[in-house]
């Protein structure tokens, strides 16, 4: 076992998969010679050469489409969006080609699109967005969002080995700020399975991504006030692990859904609806969503702090729910 950061976990997953399977290759802007805007692929160019780690022109739609074409004839491309915010340029290829290929004409499209997302880095409106919502409503895609280094490595491997298009949301803020012990041997975190990040009995906090750490911090404070929180880390956004969601609701009967994505029409709205539809008789209070405010991401630090859900917001919401 050794300790590595979230970013190193992503790097290792890519490196190990490329070494293991010659059909895996990486393409994106500045991934080759430069080693990637966040240095995720540093050293890969020297190791794998310019035909397995391709510096593409500035055309997200073009190189995502190319990834799809390569996948159709036997490759397993990993596309890197420099910032998740630019994934919208490839919306058409992802939604109308990749997502629908297998359903329409039986052709598997095993691509992975890595999307560095999330705020708290003073990035402003176009370097901080959460993008899972854009694709959540598109059947045929899979979306994952790891919150720990362990999950980051395991989920990326799973995504690469999966035969469907997977959007892999990696949180920029977590890159160098969190570490995890990982085993030496090869391991995979299955897509479609949530994880209990913290066991508890009074209230369930269902969340994913960087917000898992916010929830864990809030749970610490709440524990001192005698409230036991159960935290469910979804890990996979699409398809949702309904079984885990329903199990925790039946256990605690009070639910808070927390995500960094903006509130209206976010993943939390779907989770909330699923719970009311299938666990109505287990609810001892309304389902509360805590999410980013419904605006583009502001730049100035004070405004960004108010925009992104903070530990105190989670504590306040849970306390209110406990008093209900």
């Amino acid at each position, binding site marked *: 076992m050794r300790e590595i950061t979230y970013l190193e976990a992503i790097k290792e997953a890519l490196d190990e998969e490329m070494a293991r399977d010659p059909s895996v*290759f990486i393409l994106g802007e500045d991934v080759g010679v430069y080693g990637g805007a966040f240095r995720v692929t540093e050293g890969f160019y020297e190791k794998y050469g310019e*035909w*397995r780690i*391709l510096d*593409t*022109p500035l*055309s997200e*739609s*073009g*190189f*995502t*489409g*190319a*990834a*799809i*074409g*390569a*996948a*159709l*004839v*036997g*490759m397993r*491309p990993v596309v890197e969006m420099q910032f998740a915010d630019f994934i919208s340029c490839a919306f*058409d*290829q992802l939604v*109308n*080609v990749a997502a*629908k*290929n*297998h*359903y*329409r*004409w*039986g*052709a*598997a*499209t*095993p691509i992975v699109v890595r999307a560095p997302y999330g705020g708290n880095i003073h990035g402003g409106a176009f370097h901080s967005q959460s993008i899972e919502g854009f694709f959540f409503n598109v*059947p*045929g895609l*899979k979306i994952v969002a790891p919150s720990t280094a362990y999950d980051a490595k395991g989920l990326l491997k799973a995504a690469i080995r*999966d*035969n*469907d298009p997977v959007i892999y949301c990696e949180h920029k803020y977590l890159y160098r700020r969190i570490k995890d012990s990982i085993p030496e041997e090869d391991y995979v975190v299955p*897509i*479609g399975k949530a994880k209990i990040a913290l066991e508890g009995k009074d209230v369930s906090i269902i969340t994913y991504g960087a917000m898992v750490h916010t929830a864990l911090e809030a749970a610490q404070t709440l524990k001192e006030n005698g409230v036991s929180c159960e935290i469910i880390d979804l890990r996979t956004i699409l*398809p949702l692990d*309904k*079984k885990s969601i329903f199990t925790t609701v039946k256990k605690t009967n009070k639910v808070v859904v927390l995500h960094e994505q903006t509130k209206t029409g976010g993943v939390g709205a779907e989770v909330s609806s699923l719970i009311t539809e299938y666990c109505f008789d287990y609810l001892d209070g309304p389902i509360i969503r805590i999410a980013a405010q419904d605006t583009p991401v502001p730049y100035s630090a004070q405004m960004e702090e108010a925009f992104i859900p903070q530990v105190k917001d989670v504590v306040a919401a849970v306390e209110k729910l406990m008093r209900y």
Partner: protein
Amino acid sequence: MDIKREDLLQLYYYLKLTRRLEDRVTSLYHQGKILGGAWTSNGTEAVSVGYGYALEKNDIAAPYFRDMGVFLIRGISAKRIMAQYMGKKTGVTGGKEGNVHIGDLNFGVIGFPSHLADNYPVGTGAALAFKIRGEKRIAVACTGDGGTSRGDFHEGMNFAAARKLPMVFVCNNNQYAYSTPLRLQMNIKDIAERALAYGIPSKIVDGNNVVEVYKAAKEAYEVARNGGGPTFIECKTMRMHGHSEHDSAKYVPRELLEEWKKKDPILNMEKYLWENTIAKKEELDSIDLRVKKEIEEAEAFAEESPYPEPEDGMKGLYATPIEEE
């Protein structure tokens, strides 16, 4: 380039097969036996037959919706295509897709969405895979004149050129994108000029002359196969029907249609075969008979085939299904 006699006859056969299949489709559509929409390549068959026939077995085609000739040449049978039009279970996509939205990697044909020019980057991707793996295979993508206005047309060509990929780009310039004539679609005279912007050599051919299209395609494929990078082929032709079979195309001046009717690609080929004494009339007639029979059988097969079950609509979403407990 000398073309073998068998190949010339095959080109003729495929022209006739494409024409007849699409004529039947049009008729069935007007009878309400085919629902939704029907888009044909009437008048432009030489383009798809020409570039389709020049492909090697292991090459990959990324066609668009006026490329019926390519599907037939690559081996997707008329039976399966007819069944697809009728929404039957035995159709190419089992009822999941309709009309011309065909794809089958067992025959090297990449399925395409309705969004034009999405197939340009996708075809480029296949060529990229061949280059990475060092295979002597090429990919070809085709779109219409309207498709060349979309971003993906440019992004695909640019990427292929920047990496010198084994790719050929074809444009079926049939002068109308639905009701939009060329003069409202672009400010240039020849779409081939666009290729120059990406450093891609281009060729302009008579899109109603299947031999010319075939030769240009064959040359371009060899260039690509031997590492010479992409080529762009503009085929000048005319769309003789409406954008789709429910469009009467009143916006097209009658004189234009009359003029192009005289240059019908099948007529052209017949003339070519007679004048150069390559084929006798009996041979052409027997091909005609063969085509008629094939399409009749295809229609009968499609009529007798069952519809898919409603539940089939829930299947096949993922290639790697997630186990639900």
